[in-house]
């Protein structure tokens, strides 16, 4: 039981509990706050994985911008609490549980069947170098140049599309 494992367990428990809290709270604002908690736990996990830039970006983009947008929309629409967590249709509930168990069993089976840790072990030095801003920049602007420009187009489309959809004769 070393320190790294303890940190992992603390962060993983935080992430898992806040994820479950998110889908079980009836109030959407509390759901959003749980999700922000989850994002912070993930940022800690990324730091543990030596992905320092991703970790900061996770906080800046997800916790700082995307969740703010979500909270503004919750405030804007003022939806209130859901009186019943589950749908009124009873079969959807059982269907959801079956699907969730199936997905988890399938993913877990794959993970343990393949057992990637038998031939992959963490390369601390290499991963430290891979996570630096310089390395990511070098990859991003040479090998991944076309996807990078495509991301720019995607953001442009998102800006214009969201403005057109949201502003059209409100009130």
């Amino acid at each position, binding site marked *: 039981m070393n320190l790294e494992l303890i940190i992992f367990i603390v962060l993983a428990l935080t992430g898992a509990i806040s994820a479950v809290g998110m889908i079980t709270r009836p109030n959407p604002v509390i759901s959003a706050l749980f999700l922000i908690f989850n994002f912070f736990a993930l940022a800690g996990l990324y730091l543990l*994985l030596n992905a320092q830039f*991703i970790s900061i970006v996770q906080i800046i*983009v*997800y916790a700082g911008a995307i969740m703010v*947008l979500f909270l503004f929309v919750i405030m804007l629409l003022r939806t209130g609490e859901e009186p019943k967590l589950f749908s009124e249709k009873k079969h959807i509930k059982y269907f*959801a549980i079956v699907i969730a168990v199936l997905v988890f069993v399938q*993913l877990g089976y794959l993970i343990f069947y393949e057992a990637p840790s038998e031939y992959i072990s963490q390369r*601390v030095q290499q991963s430290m170098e891979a996570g630096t801003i310089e390395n990511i920049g070098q990859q991003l602007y040479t090998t991944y140049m076309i996807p990078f420009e495509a991301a720019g187009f995607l953001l442009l*489309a998102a800006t214009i599309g969201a403005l057109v959809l949201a502003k*059209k004769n409100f009130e």
Partner: protein
Amino acid sequence: MNSIPIEYYLILSAFMFTVGVTGVLIRRNAIVIFMCVELMLNSANLTMVAFSSYLGQSAGQIFVFFVMTVAAAEAAVGLAIIIAIFRNKLTVNIDEINIFKW
């Protein structure tokens, strides 16, 4: 050398993905469903960062960037669609939004 096997990260990611799927299926609030989708995207990000770190390559981390861009665009447009629907139907409960049915 390293004490944490990569399976731990993968199982955590699988668990978060499953929670996201469950949330999409059981919740009725469209905004919360979008948050569950964000959770699923994040669990995929965790897998990519874990493999990127354990293999010592930065390709996975660059894809995380693109996933974040897509998530931001998706949140912006998706929430705008929810606002547009709310304006017409005055609800975000997806049981009541059935304009595609006839």
